[in-house]
């Protein structure tokens, strides 16, 4: 058996997508209220879920590579373009703070009945079109500060993969502890019941109630 299968078919995409969407919704990530609460430090679910997922997948990939079932250069690893990578992250973070979603969670939002998810998608098409329109003049910036191909943290710091994963686990544990403390100070993370309102107005009332009971 040789891994990965490089299966780019319909079934492969649907399977990965259905599971991805099911987990995101179950974590509460269809809600722009819950997603943006991370930035207000009142709900740390985004940090907790993302960091845990990265660590679990990182351990799996490292084990599969060490066991010899997954060749080291067989999977996609992005390359850094310092300014474009950093500024792109800044813009996507700003987009979530303002619009309430990222690309994947806007699809989750729309699928759970949130019409604002659809408007966010319209915005993304506009933003992508704008990027394409100015692409020629942005090219220098887009390609500036290119790092080594497929560079990993382990290569950057010259330490083994296991050490990097160990450091990430320490950061995750600290993040869980600090995050949970912040959440408790704000009446706990947002629950499905709090976010179940029919309209924005209903959610607003729940918000006011929770402020009063604090």
């Amino acid at each position: 058996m040789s891994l990965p299968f490089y299966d780019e078919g319909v079934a492969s995409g649907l399977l990965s997508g259905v599971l991805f969407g099911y987990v995101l919704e179950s974590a509460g990530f269809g809600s722009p209220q819950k997603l943006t609460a991370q930035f207000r430090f009142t709900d740390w679910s985004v940090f907790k879920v993302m960091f845990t997922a990265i660590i679990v997948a990182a351990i799996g990939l490292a084990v599969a590579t060490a066991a010899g079932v997954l060749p080291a250069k067989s999977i996609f690893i992005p390359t850094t373009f310092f300014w474009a990578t950093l500024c792109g992250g800044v813009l996507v973070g700003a987009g979530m703070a303002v619009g309430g979603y990222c690309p994947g969670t806007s699809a989750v939002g729309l699928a759970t009945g949130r019409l604002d998810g659809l408007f966010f998608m319209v915005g993304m098409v506009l933003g992508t079109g704008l990027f394409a329109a100015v692409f020629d003049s942005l090219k220098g910036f887009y390609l500036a500060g290119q790092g080594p191909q497929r560079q990993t943290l382990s290569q950057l710091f010259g330490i083994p993969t296991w050490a990097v994963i160990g450091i990430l686990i320490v950061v995750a544990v600290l993040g869980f502890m600090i995050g949970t403390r912040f959440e408790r100070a704000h009446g706990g993370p947002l629950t499905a019941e709090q976010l179940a309102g029919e309209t924005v107005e209903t959610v607003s009332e729940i918000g006011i109630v929770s402020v009063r009971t604090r």
Partner: protein
Amino acid sequence: MRVRPFWPPLLAGIVLGAVLLMTFLLSGHGLGASGFFTRLTAWFGGETAREATVGNAYLGPFLKTAAHPLANWITWEIVGVMLGALLAALTSGRFRVRLDGAPKLAGPARIALAVGGGALTGFGARLARGCTSGLGLSGGAPLAVAAFLFLIGFFISGIVLGWSLRRAWL
């Protein structure tokens, strides 16, 4: 139907990590999202302003191949994401048709913010060559430097802007 609670973050993170790992073993790459919207933009441009889009250095290549710009793994994945999310919401009593968002910026303001935030995100994801899923999550698993650089920028600007806008969301 009673609304069922969300999964605890640790459980959701472990399952998401397992799904991400499975996707890597199945396809050779991780999960994504913004790539679909790039292809959607290329397709839409091809339908409405064909010459300009085909001649565009960034979107043109998507239209110059024999395959339809949307005929790609990422499209099936996004269709799957919506089906999976719909299934999870329907079976947990969390499906509601509504305009969600900051309570104090409801109605037309919410629509403007969603479109504006989407535009920032669409532009930013193209600049970064990926989004929170495609670059942050899927680049994070193989410990790519690019993923963590992206996430640093994402959280810093998200916190600065999200914190300044906090009164609208309370």
